[in-house]
């Protein structure tokens, strides 16, 4: 077991954003987390990456209790993350961006700058950004920014990669490419990937081994992908049944 959430609850004032969610993710597993806007996906992500601490429950990663661990300590354990709108460090070059991931995010924690840059070069090659290596990240196209961010996360050598709406804002033609790439990398590097999506898109279906659907902060379905898609509750959440109360 790589990641285990046990009855995690996060409240904002009176609002229960994440409501007693328990889930388990295996090493190397590809999991999709779906749910409409406001269903608590982002909050859940933030609890896992350490932006928020949950009020109740426990989060165990790789046999270590990380429930109240500050975010900068979680990253070296092997939790990487990308954002919905890419957030690279714009003034730094692609190479420097990726090197930051290697430098601070890897498990050994004390990798020298030179080594990090070497690792960055390797990762950049992996994601195919060689041509942009020395450009400022802020000057890239959105897709390149996204790739930079993914490279930065991969350079952390994560065991778990949290991807926040990885495909949002991409031109349709790029999506297939991206999907293929992520799949390849995940297999190659044995990374467990948790991809957060608003909707269970084709892209996700092709990749995910299982899907967790959240609804109003609570876990609705947790099942292998095909099974989850056939679940009437999922269809209800997405298509809705106005007649039902």
């Amino acid at each position, binding site marked *: 077991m790589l990641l285990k959430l046990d009855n995690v609850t996060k409240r904002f004032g009176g609002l229960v954003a994440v409501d007693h969610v328990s889930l388990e993710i295996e090493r190397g597993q590809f999991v999709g987390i779906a749910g*409409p*806007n*406001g*269903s608590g996906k982002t909050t859940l992500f933030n609890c896992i990456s350490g932006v928020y601490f949950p009020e109740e429950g426990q989060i165990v990663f790789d046999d270590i209790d990380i429930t109240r661990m500050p975010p900068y300590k979680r990253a070296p354990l092997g939790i990487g993350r990308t954002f*919905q*709108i890419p957030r690279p460090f714009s003034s730094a070059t692609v190479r420097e961006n990726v090197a930051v991931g290697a430098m601070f995010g890897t498990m050994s924690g004390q990798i020298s700058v030179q080594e990090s840059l070497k690792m960055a070069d390797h990762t950049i090659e992996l994601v195919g950004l060689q041509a942009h290596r020395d450009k400022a990240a802020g000057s890239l*196209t*959105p897709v390149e*920014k996204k790739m930079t961010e993914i490279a930065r996360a991969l350079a952390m050598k994560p065991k778990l990669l949290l991807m926040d*709406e990885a*495909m*949002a*804002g*991409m*031109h*349709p033609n790029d*999506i297939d490419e991206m999907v293929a790439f992520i799949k390849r990398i995940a297999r190659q590097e044995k990374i467990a990937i948790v991809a957060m999506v*608003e*909707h*269970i*898109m*084709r*892209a*996700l*279906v092709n990749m995910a081994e299982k899907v967790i659907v959240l609804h*109003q902060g609570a876990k609705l379905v947790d099942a292998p992908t095909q099974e989850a*898609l056939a679940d009437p509750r999922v269809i209800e959440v*997405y*298509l*809705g*049944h*106005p007649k*039902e*109360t």
Partner: protein
Amino acid sequence: MLNVKRVESGYGSMQVLWQPSIQVKKGSITSLLGPNGVGKSTLLNTIFGSIEPWGGEVYYEEENVTRVPTHKKVEMGIALVPEGKHLFSNMTVYENLSMGAYLKRALAHKEESLELVYTLFPRLKERTQQLAGSMSGGEQQMVTIARALMTRPRLIMLDEPSQGLAPKLVREVFETIQKMKEEIGLTILLIEQNAEASLEAADFVYVMHEGIIKAQGTPDQIKGSAEIREAFLGI
């Protein structure tokens, strides 16, 4: 009534809209379907002018309004119910509604408008002095729609009005939307994820995906079609 031609727009350097075109007929409910993050909100905001269009044109009642500032558009009768409510939380319900009647044209009919929204949303009448921020999610959504109605629009654009609401409330919202069309005679452009409900309510449907219009037609044409299933479930 509204004619959007090949608009392009986005945030920073990230292009979101890849020249979608839509038309909204007078007195109809037009629904824009599609998963989140495909540019529906961006399209509404571009039409309204909160986001500057990079290219393309927007016509409202035959007039090119592509670069008309937002407050002029409101004056012309275009209203937007934005996603995420954007209420004035430290103001009372009444003050929120009054803000809707901010422009001169709307102010002249403030009492009428108030009566109208109180009939549509009787619950608001009971709570005029409550701070908007202290209300429940469903009530806040009502205030947002009511506030938009106070601007006395002819065209109202709703951005996910049922978002985060319990199914019962979702139904209420859709009933209200129907009423707005039938009783007030508004033209409505609606963004929804809740496909079933909006298919039922709409007169015409666009399916949007990744910044372009993937499919369009009457609800009957769209219902059960391959495009919508693919767009939503990937199968």
